[in-house]
């Protein structure tokens, strides 16, 4: 039986301060008008009643990270001989992320299927993923753009998390999800939560009910393939897209990257930084040919990848967790739900005799 604990709302900060002695701790607080996962600072207000502008993606998958450090040196005997000394720079230390939403954390499970497979392991990703613990907060406020229930999840989903916190009167019920999560629950500030369990269950039922009816997306993989070659369809749904990176970079389940070398003189570093399939450069080939020349091709990839190609190779799992950020933050008001539903409902025009 999983251990359940209770923490008073007022004790959250002192608890995080305790955790911060051992780990890097991130919690949502405002930077200007943007709500971001920022390093815990007792002086900052922690804001938990709304979805953050950015998911905590950077904690495991930084916007830009150094992979390798390299130095060139010339052989003094033969200056045409150049030696390269390269060292990998693996991240160290452990991190605790407090207050992310279930959808955000579930996003990392979409990464895991790609970066931690039997065939290949991304050592940089693994180093962070293994050492980042998530104390996820069930959602007290459902937003207009939330649709986790369309993609097999719910506002109390603990998939990918280590501890699940559920709002109850006076504070939060803390449920252990993984063993390493359980180790975070040894503070004297926590008390037994057994008596609050019923309330927590009721909360989860209610909040799941607050989401609108889920749409059935089971046909999406097949239907998106059916419109793959229909460029008129894609031209229309992408007409207002600006081809920027906002949707991708705010998405908790988008994991694409670029690798570049930044060299100054004889020293340099190899970087991995976020990249996005909405950018024209993403598929630009060295020959100058671009297999995805227009924004229609690119939006088709973003939607198709999440709702068709990924599920096709990963046991039917949609690689969108329904957080709604791409809808809320798109400067052009593109709604990914609308595009998927349109593809599902699409009927090819009858061929005229």
């Amino acid at each position, binding site marked *: 039986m999983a251990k359940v604990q209770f923490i008073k709302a007022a004790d959250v900060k002192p608890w995080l301060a305790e955790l911060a002695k051992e780990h890097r701790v991130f919690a949502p607080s405002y930077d200007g*008008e*943007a709500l971001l996962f920022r390093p815990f600072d007792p002086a900052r207000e922690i804001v938990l009643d709304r979805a953050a502008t950015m998911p905590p993606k950077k904690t495991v998958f*930084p916007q830009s990270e150094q992979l390798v450090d390299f130095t060139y040196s010339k052989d003094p005997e033969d200056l045409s001989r150049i030696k390269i000394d390269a060292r990998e720079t693996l991240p160290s230390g452990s991190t605790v992320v407090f207050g992310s939403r279930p959808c955000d954390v579930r996003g990392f499970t979409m990464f895991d299927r790609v970066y931690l497979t039997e065939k290949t392991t991304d050592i940089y990703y693994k180093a962070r993923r293994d050492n980042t613990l998530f104390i996820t907060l069930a959602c007290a406020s459902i937003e*207009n753009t939330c649709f986790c229930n369309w993609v097999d999840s719910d506002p109390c989903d603990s998939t990918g998390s280590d501890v699940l916190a559920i709002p109850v009167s006076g504070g939060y019920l803390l449920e252990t999800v993984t063993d390493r999560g359980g180790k975070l629950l040894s503070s004297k500030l926590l008390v037994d939560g057994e008596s609050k369990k019923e309330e927590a269950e009721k909360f989860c039922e209610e909040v799941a009910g607050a989401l609108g009816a889920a749409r059935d997306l089971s046909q999406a993989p097949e239907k998106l393939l059916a419109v793959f070659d229909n460029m008129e369809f894609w031209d229309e749904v992408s007409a207002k897209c*600006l081809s920027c990176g906002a949707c991708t970079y705010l998405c908790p389940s988008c994991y694409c990257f*670029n690798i570049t070398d930044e060299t100054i003189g004889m020293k340099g570093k190899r970087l991995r930084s976020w990249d996005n399939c909405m950018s*024209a450069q993403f598929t630009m080939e060295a020959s100058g040919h671009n297999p995805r020349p227009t924004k229609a091709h690119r939006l088709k990839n973003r939607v198709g990848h999440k709702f068709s190609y990924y599920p096709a190779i990963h046991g039917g799992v949609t690689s969108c967790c329904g957080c709604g950020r791409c809808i809320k933050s798109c400067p*052009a008001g593109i*709604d990914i739900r609308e595009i998927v539903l349109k593809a599902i409902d699409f009927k090819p025009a009858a061929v005229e005799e």
Partner: protein
Amino acid sequence: MKYQQELKDSIRKALPDLDVVIAWSGGFDPLHATPHFIRREEDIDKLEIGPFSVHNLATYLPGLRGKKVGIVVKGCDSRSVIELLQENLINRDDVTIFGFPCTGVVDQSKIRKALGHTGKVDFCQITSQTVVVGAGGEEHKLRLSKVLADKCFTCQYPNALISDHFVGEKINPSAQSEAGYDDLEAFENMPLAERFAFWQKEMDRCIRCYACRNACPMCVCRDHCLAESRDPHWLSQEDNVRDKWMFQLIHAYHLAGRCTECGECQRACPMDIPLLLLKKKMNKEIKELFQYEAGVDPEATPPLLSFKMEEENIKEREW
């Protein structure tokens, strides 16, 4: 909006000769509109204009070159169309412009700030004075003037400056004065170290998504931007303020004397970075040096696209 029906009728008449008409329709919730591409008669019904018609649709015009395009413009948007014409980036013959008297659009960030958050919005009613928003089970009443975009307070051109079809009666600009640079002047009066710290803090959260650039109607390089070019190698891909800010400075320079202060860069930024301040600074300098305002006169040549042996206000020889 009062003239919505008239506008629909006007578009209906013109549509047979056009490939597409760009307007707005309702968005994902009652607080948002979205650009709306009208291709067929039945698309016209969805058109909605009003205080949520924030998007500057002129951004789409260069990408539709070669097509017959209709576009609905607010006063400020019409300046972008003019600037695009001035720079030969679009053909006048291919564009059909629909204007209407604009009474201002909202600033979503201001609404969010006033309400705490706007994640769950059930309804929104707007009158000429107030905005009533139902959010999170509560009703919030806001004064419209509290949530209008800053640019609308100083707007000199509420009626499209160029149009083929204008619906409704032209209105007088409500702007009392040319107070458009007050915020900038206050900023300029801050000590250098403070200004520097301000930008360091603001740019730090930039995620390099380039929504600011792509939403800008005057960003012309499109898929060939120096921000992503590796050869020449202007910017590194590091996550640091230096490179992020460098891009904004380059953008501001490339927009000097071309920017119409439509504010799309700032509106598009998912991280709410106050980018317009930088653009306004450049425009204020241009105004002082060349007495020039972008996107007002289709026949004028933007000062940085022309050359004069002797500039009146730049004393190159007499330091």
